[in-house]
């Protein structure tokens, strides 16, 4: 069997730069020196793995995982689903996907969020799941509301769900945000615009997926997540245990 090598270099012209002045917080939190480019060693091609002991089946159902029994959160009921793939288009099975979001009114269940929209007693706002053997995942939730934030005085975040993914290597670790097709706030958001190209911004917009809806119950959005791919060639000197 052919052993695998290192991960494809991250495309830093596609990913956001550290310094994006219109997103003001980045100004003092962006390194000024160039990063040191590191060819992968065992420390980067390995990473944490997760199993079914780590998550409960209900964890991916945000309609139920914090609701009082027989109750459910207020808002548009949605399904978010898709696959985790690598850049070679191969599925990434059994990988942990974690999400968090505001409620339908745009309020987070967080002690530092003071937005005047109310907390929903039936909505926690976080979930997690493992992809199946085909890299497939899904969540049930409510569509998050837009919310204001302090950047310019009148900035509003487009509706979004925060998404965290692991893959199988520390080099693949990724946090991003999922947006929704048709949101007029997308073109005005300095965080979205931290991405240098329109193509990159578009790749974070989940598509309305009528085929995956549950009629008379939940509308669906599809969101595939792509992690770094890996060379199929050997390291120069074979890593022990490879």
């Amino acid at each position, binding site marked *: 069997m052919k052993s695998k090598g290192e991960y494809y270099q991250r495309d830093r012209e596609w990913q956001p730069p550290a310094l994006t002045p219109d997103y003001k917080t980045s100004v003092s939190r962006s390194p000024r020196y160039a990063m040191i480019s*590191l060819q992968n060693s065992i420390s980067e091609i390995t990473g944490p793995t997760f199993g079914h002991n780590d998550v409960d089946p209900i964890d991916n159902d945000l309609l139920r995982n914090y609701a009082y029994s027989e109750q459910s959160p207020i808002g548009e009921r949605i399904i978010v689903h898709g696959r985790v793939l690598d850049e070679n288009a191969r599925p990434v099975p059994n990988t942990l996907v974690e999400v968090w979001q505001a409620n339908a009114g745009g309020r987070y269940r967080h002690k530092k969020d003071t937005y005047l929209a109310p907390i929903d007693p039936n909505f*926690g706002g976080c979930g997690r799941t493992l992809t199946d053997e085909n890299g497939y995942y899904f969540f049930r939730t409510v569509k998050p509301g837009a919310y204001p934030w302090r950047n310019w005085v009148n900035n509003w975040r487009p509706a979004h769900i925060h998404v965290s993914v692991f893959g199988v290597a520390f080099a693949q670790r990724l946090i991003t945000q999922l947006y929704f097709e048709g949101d007029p706030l997308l073109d005005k958001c300095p965080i979205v615009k931290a991405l240098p190209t329109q193509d990159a911004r578009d790749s974070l917009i989940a598509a309305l997926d009528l085929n995956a809806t549950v009629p008379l119950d939940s509308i669906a959005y599809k969101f595939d997540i792509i992690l770094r791919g890996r060379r199929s060639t050997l390291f120069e000197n074979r890593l022990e245990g490879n």
Partner: protein
Amino acid sequence: MVQKLDYLKETPSQTAGPYVHIGLAPGAAGFEIYDHELGQDIAGPNAKGERIRVEGTVIDGTGSPVKDALIEVWQANSEGYYSHPEGGGPVEEGFRGWGRVITDFDTGEWAFDTVKPGRAQGRDVGIQAPHINLWIVARGINIGLNTRLYFDDEDEANAADPVLNIIEWECRRATLIAKRSEGTSPQVYRFDIRLQGEDETVFFDI
């Protein structure tokens, strides 16, 4: 026109934002939702080696502590093996080598307990000095920052470490060396991460 390469593009990163705790450390956000939160126990009870505590702050370009950061830890066990199919060798039952910590909302201090890692194999030749891989996300950080923590009582190993040695500016290598505190039990190492400014921490594009 040339033929099309059919690779996919990596999903672009976006900041974890100020409320990363809701998703990754909900207890800290102020509510209980999961039976157990992930990343609370790095080494587990069976891990061999020296028990240590690592503590520090994350400091921004104005010199202020960052109070809404989350740090993930990835390390080998005391024999230099990672808990992974390609980790180099077996690890103790319950040793994960992975954890996550947040910076305190008031002070910006973070800390985690673990065992001191051993020397993992190097990429090409040789062996790496004991180190802990760190990944930092926060509001204002558009894409997670990777760095490494080394130990100041490992001079010999550090001097031969292949990663420290590719940092051209020798004066900057010191930003990756955690400082051993005297007379603490378990042993405490101090590691402040500077996102910007004088003594900016070395970050890696891995």
